[in-house]
């Protein structure tokens, strides 16, 4: 990890964002275990370096298309974690007034065009935001986050084809955590690196270590700058792993089929822990400072948990609103 070249401020921001995501989701998992959460949630734990690195390279008015595993993208964009928590519990002041839940949190004020329950469905939508940018002639970019499994949907091909043909300002980020629920990508695709598919569209395809926030940031920055300059899309594949199953409550035993130690090996590369260790080695952030950061975030998280728990459920009449204008 190249922390040496980074300022204390930048590293602190990376760490704060990743730590906030991690703690946020640990509490979401607790909600589930305590039976407080209706339905399910797809946790981003383990993948924090990706959203953090990519979003650190964005401007405030850029757009993001997110996925069913979208909490990290929202936190990285500075979405209100109180309203996120409330939405996850189906409460009145959640981002979607309790109508969307974990899988559909939208924060339009942060450029988040929606998390999406249909795998691959957000890729053309983010691409459309890029068309809109080109049409309006602004210097914004659109980011489309999706998993490796979504790259087998037709929408992936259709979107990358149009974006490359029309040089749209969009960057595609594959969060390759190896599994689509239980299906191992290595069993359903004949390429080791999904990024190789970029060559079919005549655009750059890059593979990065998705557990290293600095590597993600630097690669994303290059691709984003390129898109802003009108050079068109890039496909970035981030190799990563999810700590939990597909969703909370999935024991993910299928992952030990090929290698019983697979999860353990990946967890050693924990993006949050590795950044903390590297920053300490290079004396960029002191132990005391880390303690302060963590304490500050813990306070935010506890405030959000309390807010979500105390927030009332929406009125039943709310079912009938927001269908049409």
């Amino acid at each position: 990890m190249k922390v040496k070249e980074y300022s204390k401020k930048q590293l602190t921001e990376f760490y704060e964002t990743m730590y906030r995501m991690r703690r946020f989701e640990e509490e979401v998992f607790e909600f589930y275990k305590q039976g407080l959460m209706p339905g399910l949630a797809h946790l981003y734990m383990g993948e924090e370096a990706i959203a953090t690195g990519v979003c650190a390279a964005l401007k405030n008015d850029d757009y993001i298309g997110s996925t069913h595993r979208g909490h990290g993208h929202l936190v990285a964009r500075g979405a209100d974690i109180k309203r996120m928590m409330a939405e996850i519990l189906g409460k009145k002041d959640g981002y979607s007034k309790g109508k969307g839940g974990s899988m559909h949190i939208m924060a339009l004020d942060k450029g988040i065009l929606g998390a999406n329950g249909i795998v691959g469905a957000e890729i053309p939508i983010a691409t459309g935001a890029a068309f809109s940018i080109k049409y309006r002639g602004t210097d914004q970019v659109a980011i489309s986050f999706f998993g490796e499994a979504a790259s087998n949907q037709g929408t992936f091909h259709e979107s990358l084809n149009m974006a490359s043909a029309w040089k749209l300002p969009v960057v595609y980020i594959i969060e390759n955590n190896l599994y689509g629920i239980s299906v191992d990508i290595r069993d359903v695709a004949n390429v080791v690196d999904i990024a190789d598919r970029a060559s079919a569209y005549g655009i750059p395809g890059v593979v990065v270590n998705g557990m290293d926030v600095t590597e993600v940031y630097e690669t994303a920055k290059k691709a984003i700058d390129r898109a802003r300059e009108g050079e068109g899309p890039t496909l970035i594949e981030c190799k990563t792993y999810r700590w939990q199953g597909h969703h909370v409550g999935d024991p993910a035993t299928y992952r030990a089929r090929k290698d019983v130690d697979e999860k353990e090996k990946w967890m050693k590369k924990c993006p949050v822990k590795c950044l903390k260790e590297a920053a300490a080695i290079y004396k960029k952030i002191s132990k005391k400072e880390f303690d302060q950061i963590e304490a500050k975030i813990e306070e935010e998280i506890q405030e959000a948990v309390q807010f979500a728990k105390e927030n009332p459920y929406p009125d039943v009449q709310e079912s009938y609103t927001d269908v049409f204008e």
Partner: protein
Amino acid sequence: MKTLTYAQAVCEALDEEMAKDDKVVLLGEDVAFLGGNFKTSVGLYEKYGDLRVKDTPISEAGFTGLAIGMALTGLRPVVELMFSDFLLVAADQVINQAAKIRYMSGGQANVPMVIRTPIGAGRSSAAQHSQSMQAMVSHFPGLKVVVPSNAAEVKGLLKTAIRDNDPVIFFEHKMEYNKKFEIPDIVEPIPFGKARIAREGKDITIVATSSLVMKSEEAAEKLEKEGISVEVIDLRTIVPFDKETVINSVKKTGKLVIADESYERCGVAAEIAAEIFDEVFYYLDAPIGRVSTPNVPLPFSPALEFPIIPSVDRIYNKIKELI
């Protein structure tokens, strides 16, 4: 008044709305250089350029999704799907995305887009290019569904569709595109959810959609010579549905026929009958009649196709059966 084809009326509505609002963008297969497979965008590419009139690859799900992203970020895209059968190729984007974004986001976002697409049999186009998909999309909350009749109606309703802040599925009838109509020089937008009484009558009501409004008027003309007075209601929009106009007419005539070209099973006619039944039960003097497409895929041979298409004769016969 002036004379225009139905296709020219579509084109005029697009042109006037594009001239009025630079956020309106047209995209779809063959809409630019060719001017539309059914000549509904002739001259627009030359007038508005490549970014506003965009030829797309054959990627219906992809470019429909693209339009959603455009609509979420300040534009008003009009998507052309070359045949309404292709709605099924783009179904996830239409039904799981566009229709639900306002709701799933708790009202934060809206999707001001129009999908224009032709329905109807009669060209020996067989089972995958002849269907009328209005019943299918009407099933899903979050989509407005427009089934215009003549050229003036097409123009007025399309203008409203483009200005609407929700996703609108706008069904044009492919057998009408080349027909000529008299239309006023200036056509104002026509509000959604307000049916039009196309012809007043007192013996029986016929509620019709799309080209079947014209066919019903023709049947009514024939029946008048036999002393039967038919009231023809042009529904204009399936969603929103103008229940009041239909109910009032049925209360007056005591008899109802519904003509819509989607398949009969779970079709628009079945839904209209169910929607109003509670309120007209005691006023009805005959069962409610339906004229729809029978529950078979559309055949190729004219010998097979024509007898099953809802026609003037089928409407005429159904009315005679109930009178």
